């Protein structure tokens, strides 16, 4: 009798817990943002896991990475296999932990790190943290990255259970949330976020004086860690400053990067000094007044960078490998399909309706 009662009690508890877990999981899937047609960069980090392995070059960094270089173009021109592990306002410790995680999946020949994030020495913004951290698979790297990135208002538990963060989205649910509850959408090209629209540079930002130009200790600490990790794994580290004219890149920052790269015997390329050599025209190669390059600009960057990687770093051409070619051909086809589709949308609507673009009038410009 006692045994039966105990058994029933355990079954009841297990059943209640199962219902709770199922409900929790369901609501979590439903309420977590899908980033389908808006802020689509929110899916960038998770996209990597479908493409991990076989990349000779890994780019890490913020939007100056994932919007400024086209890995598909680099493949087409040089047969270089690359992937961009970029995310919006990716902080340097996030870059480090993403690299640490990436090296668990593959060992590239070279890693290119965009140095703009050196200007941040402390956690910045919860929304941007989410764009980088939510998409990561659970690992010790993710845990460390969350801990390093959290602002005061955040809790670790809300990363473990995103429902605790996104529960208030119940009043903003759209059909997209139901449609993409259990499936994603293919939007990226080896971590590259394509935009074909054009909004030329009309003015150059002024260099407002800063009280202190010295990069912070934490930023340096993680740059050292990135350097050490690459050395440990036998990966060549290349530092890069992408050719974005905004945010401003100060001469004082440049001096520190030059000094650091010399001290650590690293290659450092500041594309702001190579605008003409790369062939970037800010009248045609940017979609947001010079903050990021559009497809035309990103392809020019890929052409220049691919040549550099091959000549200076000896990155191999894989176009003679049937298996690799087959894999990249499929991606190349998708790339050109999207390119055509974006041009079609641009012509039809005047803006990129399905690709995160907005009508110019909506932005008040």
């Amino acid at each position, binding site marked *: 009798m006692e045994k039966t009662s105990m058994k029933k*009690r355990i079954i*009841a508890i297990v059943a*209640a817990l199962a*219902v*709770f877990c199922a*409900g*929790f999981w369901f*609501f979590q899937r439903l*309420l977590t943002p899908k980033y389908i047609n808006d802020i689509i960069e929110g899916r960038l980090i998770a996209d990597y896991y479908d493409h991990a392995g076989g990349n000779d070059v890994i780019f890490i960094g913020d939007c100056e990475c994932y919007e400024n270089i086209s890995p598909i173009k680099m493949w087409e021109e040089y047969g270089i296999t690359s992937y961009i592990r970029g995310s919006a306002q990716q902080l340097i410790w996030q870059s480090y932990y993403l690299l640490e995680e990436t090296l668990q999946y593959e060992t590239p020949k070279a890693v290119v790190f965009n140095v703009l994030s050196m200007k941040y020495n402390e956690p910045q913004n*919860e929304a941007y943290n989410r764009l980088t951290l939510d998409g990561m698979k659970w690992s010790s790297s993710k845990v460390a990255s969350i801990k390093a990135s959290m602002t005061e*208002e*955040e*809790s670790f*538990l*809300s990363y473990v259970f995103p*429902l*605790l*963060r996104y*529960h*208030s989205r*119940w*009043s903003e649910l759209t059909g997209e949330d139901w449609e993409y509850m259990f499936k994603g959408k293919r939007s990226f090209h080896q971590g590259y976020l394509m935009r074909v629209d054009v909004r030329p540079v009309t003015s150059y930002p002024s260099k407002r004086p800063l009280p202190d130009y010295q990069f912070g200790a934490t930023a340096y600490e993680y740059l050292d860690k990135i350097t050490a990790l690459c050395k440990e794994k036998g990966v060549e580290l290349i530092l890069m400053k992408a050719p974005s004219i905004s945010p401003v890149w100060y001469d004082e920052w440049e001096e520190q990067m030059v000094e650091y790269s010399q001290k650590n015997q690293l290659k450092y390329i500041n594309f702001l000094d190579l605008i003409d050599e790369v062939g970037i025209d800010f009248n045609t190669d940017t979609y947001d007044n010079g903050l990021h390059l559009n497809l035309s600009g990103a392809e020019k960057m890929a052409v220049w960078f691919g040549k550099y990687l091959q000549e200076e770093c000896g990155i191999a051409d894989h176009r003679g490998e049937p298996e690799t070619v087959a894999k990249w051909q499929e991606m190349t086809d998708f790339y050109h399909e999207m390119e055509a589709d974006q041009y079609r949308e641009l012509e039809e609507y005047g803006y990129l309706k399905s690709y995160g673009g907005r009508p110019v009038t909506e932005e008040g410009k």
Partner: protein
Amino acid sequence: MLFTSYEFIAFLCGLFILYYLIPKKFQWILLLVGSAVFYAWAGIRFLAYIGVTTVTTWYAGTRISGIQEAGNAYYDAHKKEMDKEARKAYKADVKKKTRGWFLACLLLNLGILAVVKYTDFVIDNINAIFHGEISFLSFALPMGISFYTFKSMGYLIDVYRGKTKAQSNLAKFALFVSFFPQIIQGPISRYDKLSETLYGEHAFDPVRIRSGLMRIAWGFFKKLVIADRLLAGVKTLSAKPEEYQGAYVVLIILFYAIELYADFTGGIDITIGVGEIFGIKMEENFITPYFSKNINEYWTRWHITMGAWFKDYIFYPLSVSQPMLKLSKWSRDHMGKAVGKRVTVYIANIVVWFATGLWHGAAWNFIVWGMLNCVVTVASYEMEPLYKKFHTALPCTNRGWYDVFQMFRTFWLMGAIRILDVYRNVPTSFKQVGTIFTTGGWGSIFSADVLKLGLTGADYLVVLIGCILMIAVSIVRYRQKDDIRVNFEKRGVVCVSAVILLLVFAVLIFGAYGVGYDATQFIYNQF
């Protein structure tokens, strides 16, 4: 450790599992350790304050009890040898011996409370009156000091009166004082009641635990879904009194009435529910207060344990004290029976309401709030005969709708007085209430303007549904004189589990917590 924090939930889960894994005789020790951890979480240095109160009250209690027991034993043994006068003298002598311990302990602990809570208030008033510049001492207020001090002093008074036997075990007494669910906002338990279950051995009782969980979930629902969601509206309206006047003052009275009720009763639901899952029974602190038909009834339904504390330990002793009886007699002799009858009651009322106001906070708005309650209570008492005549003359006042009218009237009257708590400034509060009659703006509160108060349409919808649920639960409680949980329990385990899960998901999804919401402590934590 806020009740609504992840830390508290983790702490509670851990404690709960351990509680039913360890031998039952150690359960109360685990609760003591848990209470110490809970208290230390707010700052280890605060343990000193509660430690002093615990040790001094326990020691004074045992000494008083010891003297009483020895006295009683001697009295019983020598009763026959003593005449009436000698017996009286002996009892007085015993009382005198205990009085020293009693007063010393009472003054010490009320003194600690007065110093840490009221010093800056006194300095502020001295500076204002004498244009002085005395610096504030800015003592950090130990968590729950008003609650645990009152609980301890209630125990001391009961021991002194011989109503309760002192607890000889210091650790057990420490658990009574620091029992974590009720340390921050009550209820202010009496030792004789709480000790019945606090130190007992409790088996894992699924029915009781489910019931407790249901109450905890309901408490979280009220706090996070209703109170914290409305908080934005209350903050917006109270932050700019010059902008939100007239009809908006009526709106803030309504908002704050809902917020305070959901916040305070939600906290008490969590407290009582936590007690239940550990097998510990606590007194109810609220019984459908907004269904009260007059102020006296209201104060028997709202914050019941506090009201009872003031009544039992201040009002009654003061009313029957020697000076008051003398005053009463003098008044009867010199001013007539009617005045003589009233004078002691009124003075005791004034003292009690002044103390109640002061207990809520070291600020004039709380004192004026207390005195307004006093005025309404006395006025209500004085108008009693008039009401009786009115009710006799109009038989329709026996109808149900008249009850509803009285509830409605009491709700708004108490809400209007409570506005002192909203603005925290006496002149502003009176001015704002005055604008209800002088400034219009009624159209605004029924227009899209209400969406500019920090609350969206979705927020209003959630609050509305939450209020409907609270009213429904209150109606059931009011009619059947019992908790609605009884109705669910009758329907079996599946029904209870479903209710708990629904509440948990409602809290998880509709709760105002996390990034984007202003995490707040329970309003009564600060008192």
